[in-house]
């Protein structure tokens, strides 16, 4: 019973991180690291929540959440791509601005209540013992996010668009030579990333908590950025990492309910420590798929 709870919770609370990390993966594959993802997740969570309160439709909410995340990432894209600003510093500022702006604009929504997205059991499949409940009883955004992963993989590695996007992150000279503007490609990748992070935020507020709380992302956006590195820029591994983070979150809730006498604050730390450990393990195995433009940023050269 407890294992089932934790595994279900892993998916439920991991989805927001997963969406954000898929978005971040797109933008990093194009050579832009966006720590502002944290801000985009928050903007998405608030935008989605507010829209759902006003219109009553969670679908419109999710869309609005995505747009809010996109708008915030547009600032990052402009400063980094057009103005050549330091990527890490700009990202942090966006994160900061996102926290400030959402807690300011969101204060009227703290006490609001919404229906939002509720779990939809898939007929037949959800009747499978044990697995049915874990895998096939989730909110619609979660199902969509799972479908997104293979699509993203296909686009990135099997289509012309994917080649263009990846060459923007590896060798922009190649794109120049074939008459494509690498800046435009990066813009689109960062905006798409912001949109996905915003939808991740929407899942957080509309399906996971059904409420808006100041600074509710609690570092999920930052974790998403870290997970992309852990995943060595592969969508499927980023998904795995996100569910691992979700499992740590779910474990914490379950252990708290069981009252095993472990301090909740230790349990709160677990997801972050786990992310760090995962990063360490991966870094030990040498990998060569770091996008070239990105490795310059991570090595402390700022890049642009």
């Amino acid at each position, binding site marked *: 019973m407890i294992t089932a709870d934790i595994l279900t919770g892993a998916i439920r609370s991991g989805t927001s991180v997963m969406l954000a990390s898929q978005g971040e993966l797109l933008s990093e594959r194009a050579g832009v690291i966006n*720590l502002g993802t944290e801000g985009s997740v928050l903007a998405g969570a608030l935008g989605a929540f507010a829209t759902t309160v006003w219109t009553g439709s969670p679908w419109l909410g999710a869309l609005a959440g995505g747009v809010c995340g996109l708008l915030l990432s547009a*600032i990052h894209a*402009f*400063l980094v791509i057009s*103005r*050549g*600003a*330091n990527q*890490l*510093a*700009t990202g*942090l*500022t*966006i994160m*900061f*601005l996102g*926290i*400030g*702006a959402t*807690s*300011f604009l969101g*204060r009227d929504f703290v006490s609001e209540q919404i229906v939002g997205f509720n779990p939809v059991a898939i007929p037949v499949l959800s009747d499978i013992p044990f697995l049915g409940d874990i895998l096939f009883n989730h909110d619609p955004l979660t199902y969509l996010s799972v479908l997104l992963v293979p699509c993203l993989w296909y686009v990135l590695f099997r289509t012309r668009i994917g080649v263009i996007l990846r060459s923007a992150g590896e060798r922009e000279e190649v794109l120049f030579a074939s008459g494509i503007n690498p800046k435009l490609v990066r813009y689109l990748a960062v905006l798409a990333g912001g949109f996905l992070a915003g939808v991740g935020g929407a899942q957080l507020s509309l399906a996971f908590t059904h409420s808006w709380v100041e600074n509710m992302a*609690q*570092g999920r956006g*930052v*974790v998403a*950025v*870290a997970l992309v*590195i852990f995943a060595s820029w592969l969508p499927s591994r980023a998904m795995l990492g996100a569910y691992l983070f979700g499992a740590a979150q779910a474990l914490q809730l379950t252990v708290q309910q069981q009252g095993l006498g472990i*301090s909740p*604050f*230790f349990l*709160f*730390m677990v997801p*972050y*420590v786990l*992310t*760090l450990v995962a*990063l*360490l393990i991966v*870094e*030990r195995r040498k990998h060569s798929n770091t996008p070239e433009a990105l490795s310059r940023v*991570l*090595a*402390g*050269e*700022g*890049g*642009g």
Partner: protein
Amino acid sequence: MKQPTFVPVGVSGGIGPFRSNWKPLFKQLLVWLSPFVVFGVFLLFYHVNPLRLYGSMVQSTFGDLYGLGEVLLKATPFILTGLAAALPAKAGLVNVGGEGQLAIGALFATGSAVFLLERFPAWLGIPIMLLAGALGGALWGMLIAALKVKGRLNETITSVLLNYVAGYTVAFFVHGILKDPESFNWPYSPEIAWTLRLPIFDGTRLHVGFIIAIVLAIVVWYVLAKTRLGFRIRVLGSNRHAAERAGMNVNRTYFWVLVAAGALAGIAGMIEISGIEGRLRPTTGVNYGYFGFLAAMLAWNHPLKLLGTSFLLGMISVAGNTLEIGSGLPASSATILMGLVLLFILGGRRRAKR
């Protein structure tokens, strides 16, 4: 930071002596004014007169001694956490760990004050408490440094992740063994002995910690600008490969720079406890690490310019309180203004050269 900087002795990007200074000056002015204009428009939507707000900001800062003291009081931790960002930045590192290092520094300082220094005289107790704070911050910085040097993990990401861990560590202690037994259910530590409180200037709430921060800023500036060690750090920051080829031990420099940065932020934590709060709460110094990072960015990571930008951020923070009391806007609106200021500065800079 790759951008050319205005270091007194410039290794990177020297500024030619004969260049006309008018155009850059105008541009600088525009960059500094724009965020205030944008924020002003934002305020208009909430029926707040921006000119009156900015006026009262200046008024409450320079109007009387108490107001000035409040701004300097707010600026003090920003100077120290700003140094914690600026020093590594000179070595080419983006350290955002000031937030967590301040928290752990405050934790160590409070722990030592409550369990060890209760009966110590001030002249002995306060320095020990300061060292405890520095030690706490340094240990947290060492964690980031070890992950960087041994694990080859990017320090920006690890330091942000560790900030969350630090926050929960403080919460663990103030809910646990460091909890005030007389506090009923409120999570905070017992009050530290009055002998361990920093002396306060008459007529204000400003304490000696402000002097400590300024002295440390000057020390960091001196080390960076005038010593061989500082030269090495700046060489490493402007061209890592050159530093490697010159036979420098890059990893060792990274390691100790990050540890020193942690110690500086840890001292900020101690000053918060000993100078202002008197006890540790889960909210002690929250966001100060990020504000310090912003202050350092605004100052182009120059330790002395940092004094000025910290003062500015202090003004904006105090203005946030004015906003809350005067016009019912939450204090978080001040963070929006800060974010805007920084975005314009980041975007207004000359393009980083490849």
